[in-house]
């Protein structure tokens, strides 16, 4: 524990003098038993690197699910002051722009679903396209495509994919303003054209779960959850469209570095001032990708409802399939935050971190004003996922942010090795879940033991006060790309 200085049971500091050029300290949220894993890779170095970014305020932050990324670590949060030469960095968002999670509730119970689980997962697998070796079912004309990028989730709802009420239960109502479809490269347009409405591969998934434990009865009730009831979690992002936007702008930002005389310790942290053309263009393109992702998850949610309807012979309304919420966990947003008593307009980069706005925040719909924002935290496919709620302390300490998931501890190769010759099916059977995947390799790489125990991660954010636990879900079946 050479570098890290313990601040309290859940916060560890990288002092400002650790590395030349650091403008603020680094703060990592973790408990003592996690530190050894965190120190194993270079993520601490990456937190320190981010602290050198121009205009960064307060601290370079990392959540307990921190792991090695490129540029910013996964689990990293960086806020830069837009009025004080603060920079915008695509490396602070990542390639999968607006990768995020959506949670649907149902009126179904474990007793309803258990006998039909296999049929349900098979139907979901057939209805919800993975996009791995297959294209999405949505064909869009050029003008419609631009509408997707401008309007996000509401495009999907107007086109018939979803319910109007889904919008208010989506972060930023499923649409970032300030888009400019004209600055999107032909490559990004082409890459995204056939992928709208697809799940994607890697850690993306669609999971049927049961509410296993309620921590805060009142909050759970307000969010529409009860023990023993079935929920569905959808984890996906902006697919090839967002990947290409990030690729395009990283290259552009590389050139901007010398133009603006900016030095960064890692090329992947290439950035430009908020007020520059490059900075503004990235924000406008990133907003297009974020909206693509919200339209994407909206379509996936629609087909999920259709699959349930088919299997249970009732329409989705009768099944009570209301959307609890949808959060982004790879994004940069311009938000107002109080720093040292002053209200500042900040570019909050959340890379593997979730917004966690407190009760009373004006951005929340009226039915969540008292609870705080629902924060959806997916775990690995074997153990558990969680629902939390945003807090005032998150607003004070972490720019209204908290963790995003389990965080990998084993590389993909190490995950294969860890199975020690057992088949992935045997390993999954151990957890009693039913899984369908387009690629078996993905299933192997995503074996539960490759991840930190999600329960440790949410325990830290709950005890540190930057979100509070509402409910825990146990996976029953999963569809993967």
């Amino acid at each position, binding site marked *: 524990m050479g570098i890290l200085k313990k601040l309290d049971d859940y916060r560890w500091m990288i002092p400002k003098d650790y590395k030349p050029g650091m403008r603020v300290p680094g703060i990592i949220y973790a408990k003592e038993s996690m530190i050894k894993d965190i120190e194993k890779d270079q993520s601490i170095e990456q937190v320190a690197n981010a602290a050198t970014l121009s205009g960064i305020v307060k601290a370079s932050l990392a959540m307990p699910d921190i792991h090695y990324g490129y540029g910013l670590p996964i689990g990293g949060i960086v806020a830069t002051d837009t009025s004080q030469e603060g920079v915008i960095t695509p490396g602070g968002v990542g390639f999968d722009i607006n990768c995020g999670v959506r949670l649907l509730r149902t009126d179904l119970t474990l007793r309803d679903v258990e006998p039909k689980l296999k049929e349900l997962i098979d139907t979901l697998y057939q209805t919800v396209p993975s996009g791995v070796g297959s294209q999405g079912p949505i064909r869009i004309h050029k003008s419609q495509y631009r509408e997707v990028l401008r309007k996000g989730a509401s495009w999907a709802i107007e086109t018939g994919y979803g319910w109007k009420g889904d919008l208010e239960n989506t972060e930023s109502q499923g649409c970032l303003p300030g888009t400019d479809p004209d600055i999107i490269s032909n490559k990004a347009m082409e890459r995204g054209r056939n992928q709208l409405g697809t799940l994607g591969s890697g850690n993306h998934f669609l999971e049927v779960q049961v509410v296993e434990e309620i921590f805060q009865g009142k909050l759970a009730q307000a969010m529409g959850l009860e023990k023993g009831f079935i929920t569905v979690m959808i984890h996906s992002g902006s697919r090839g469209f967002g990947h290409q936007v990030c690729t395009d702008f990283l290259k552009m930002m*590389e050139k901007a570095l010398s133009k603006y005389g900016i030095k960064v310790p890692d090329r992947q942290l290439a950035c430009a001032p908020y007020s520059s053309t490059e900075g503004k263009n990235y924000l406008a393109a990133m907003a297009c990708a974020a909206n693509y992702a919200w339209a994407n998850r909206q379509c996936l949610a629609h087909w999920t409802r259709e699959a349930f309807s088919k299997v249970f012979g009732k329409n989705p309304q009768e099944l009570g399939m209301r959307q609890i919420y949808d959060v982004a966990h790879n994004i940069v947003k311009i938000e107002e935050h109080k720093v040292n008593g002053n209200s500042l307009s900040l570019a909050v980069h959340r890379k593997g971190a979730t917004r966690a706005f407190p009760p009373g925040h004006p951005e929340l719909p009226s039915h969540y004003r008292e609870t705080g924002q629902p924060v959806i935290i997916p775990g690995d496919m074997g153990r558990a996922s969680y629902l939390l709620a945003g807090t005032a302390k998150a607003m004070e300490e972490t720019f209204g942010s908290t963790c995003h998931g389990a965080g990998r501890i084993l590389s993909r190769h190490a995950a294969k090795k860890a199975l020690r010759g057992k088949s992935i099916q045997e390993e999954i059977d151990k957890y009693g879940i039913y899984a369908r995947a387009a*690629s078996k390799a993905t299933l192997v790489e995503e074996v539960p033991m490759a991840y930190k125990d999600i329960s440790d991660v949410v325990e830290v954010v709950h005890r540190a006060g930057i979100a509070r636990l509402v409910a825990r879900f146990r996976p029953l079946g999963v569809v993967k790309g």
Partner: protein
Amino acid sequence: MTKGFWIFDTTADTGLEIYGAGLEEVFHNALRGLFSIISDLEKIEEREETEVKAQGEDWPDLMVTWLNELIFLQDAREWLFKDCYIEELKPYTIRALCKGERFKKGKHRIKTLVKAATYHQAAVKETPQGYRAVVILDV
């Protein structure tokens, strides 16, 4: 000939270490390394070809940009490449005839969808044996 590349893991992603006697060989092997991660090289036939161009600020940037061009062609147009003939390689541009075929369900499988090649620790360096390049891929 050895295969000229080595795939290594970082915690969340996949790295590609590429070797070659000369720079041309390094760029050639980078293509093979990339498509051995995405699919099975031995199942890809050289049925079609397409010209690919890339431009960079320096060698590491050119390597990252080259791989990103190939990733785009795979993700957007379903190309799977097995080989390439490098028509021109100079500081810092590449023009190559890439050979392979389009993805066919049943014949090919996608093992890993690669999102992008990153600049993180990207390097192209001269060694006593020739050249060595490193690129980390976001998968």
